[in-house]
């Protein structure tokens, strides 16, 4: 530990004087972008799948859609996200002849992946809402989908918000693998600083701290959101 001061100095030199911080900022932005956009896509896909899964199944179309959803969830929960990322980037997209930048590939894969997880969370949330809520909506002449979207899903989201926050945190941490397909995230930024200063202790320590702080901030935001959504439970 004797030369920690020296290491800190080296790190600072690359980080500040050689413009390492711009890379860190880019990395931070990309990490946030992938996680936020991924979760947004995930919530949309997850909600749709969850609604299909809880839809009454005495007609053929819901049955077919349900089969498709089961397959989708199985596919994306059954393999590690690194594998999904690599396969999408190096196999699926080239085969389809589609050329999109790595960052967007990451958003797509993370979105599809979290969609599979969110669908299960959302299904649990929807099933936790009193069936009477759906009945009341239907008895007033509202359609299944209207009642679902206006009454049941908002209550489900309130119930699952802590779990959804957890999913978001997991997503942020998982973004650390996007450098596999060449997207510039925090790891790439600090690795760059490390290679240029020939020492990795301080950069990786800084990286760890940034992740922890990010996650703590999100946990706090989820708490605040939860409290504002819970206002319908409070007596006032």
């Amino acid at each position, binding site marked *: 530990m004797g030369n920690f001061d020296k290491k800190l100095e080296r790190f600072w030199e690359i980080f500040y004087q050689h413009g390492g911080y711009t890379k860190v900022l880019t990395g931070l932005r990309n990490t946030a972008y992938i996680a936020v956009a991924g979760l947004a896509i995930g919530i949309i896909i997850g909600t749709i799948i969850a609604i299909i899964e809880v839809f009454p199944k005495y007609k053929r179309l819901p049955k077919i859609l349900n089969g498709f959803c089961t397959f989708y969830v199985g596919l994306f929960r059954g393999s590690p996200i690194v594998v999904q990322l690599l396969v999408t980037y190096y196999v699926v997209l080239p085969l389809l002849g589609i050329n999109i930048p790595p960052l967007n590939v990451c958003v797509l894969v993370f979105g599809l992946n979290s969609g599979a997880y969110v669908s299960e969370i959302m299904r649990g949330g929807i099933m936790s809402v009193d069936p009477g809520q759906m009945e009341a909506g239907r*008895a007033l002449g*509202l359609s299944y989908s209207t009642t679902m979207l206006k009454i049941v899903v908002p209550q489900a989201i309130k119930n699952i918000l802590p779990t959804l926050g957890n999913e978001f945190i997991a997503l942020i941490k998982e973004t650390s693998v996007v450098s596999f397909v060449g997207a510039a995230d925090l790891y790439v930024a600090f690795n760059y600083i490390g290679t240029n200063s020939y020492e990795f202790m301080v950069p990786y320590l800084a990286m760890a701290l940034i992740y922890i702080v990010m996650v703590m901030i999100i946990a706090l935001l989820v708490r605040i959101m939860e409290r504002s959504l819970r206002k319908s439970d409070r007596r006032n």
Partner: protein
Amino acid sequence: MIDVIDLKKNYGKLEVLKGITVTIGEGEKIAIIGPSGSGKSTFLRCLNCMEDPTSGSIIFENVDIADMKVDINIYRRHMGMVFQQFNLFNNKTVIDNIMLAPVHIGISDLRRKRIKNFFISIRNFFAKNRKPLYEINTTPSKIKAEARENAMRLLKRIGLEDKANVYPATLSGGQKQRIAIIRALAMNPKVMLFDEPTSALDPEMVGEVLELIKQLADEGMTMVIVTHEMGFAREVATRVLFMDEGKIVEDNTPEEIFVNPKNPRTREFLSKVL
């Protein structure tokens, strides 16, 4: 008004309704009584197809709404339903609970008319014989304002206008149930279905809910009430149906049923509850 013809309902192998035929006339107040498990609630819930009948038909406004091809949502708008557990929307304030359905249905009807008008005007542009457009004399904001006014009027009627902007979690059971009743009334239903409206209430709150139902009855609303409140059934109903084991065993005026029951099972049931 509602003609029920040979209505049957099975849950798997369990036969809950074993062929019910009954006619509900305009302005009638029908109380359905009977032991638990006799199919009273199931019968009521079949009337607006909350439970899909296994067979038989329910003719409402000259349409068999038991037919799965019929768009049931249109007919449910004219049949108000009140539940045992109130079922107010927990994520909406009281006024939003009342306004939600009228506003949503009003606006989606308006949108549908606009889309139809758009296609008709395209067609009129090419065709020689002009088709008339749907008349549109409202706007979304007008629909909302009207629904709000109507909701406030209904809330005033039950004396809860000061509760307009609170969430249902803050209300007592009696208040919730009265709001659930006016929520159904906001759709201007032709018939009201009550599924044991006072069974989940504290005894001291039963009175206020029954009072409101009685007011509706006096105004001439057609209603079907599943109830265990025999005194209320006797006072308000114009006709009482006694159900047992999925069938209507006795169908008569309240005086006849309560004073002079014909069927031995009715007699036995009434001797226990009265």
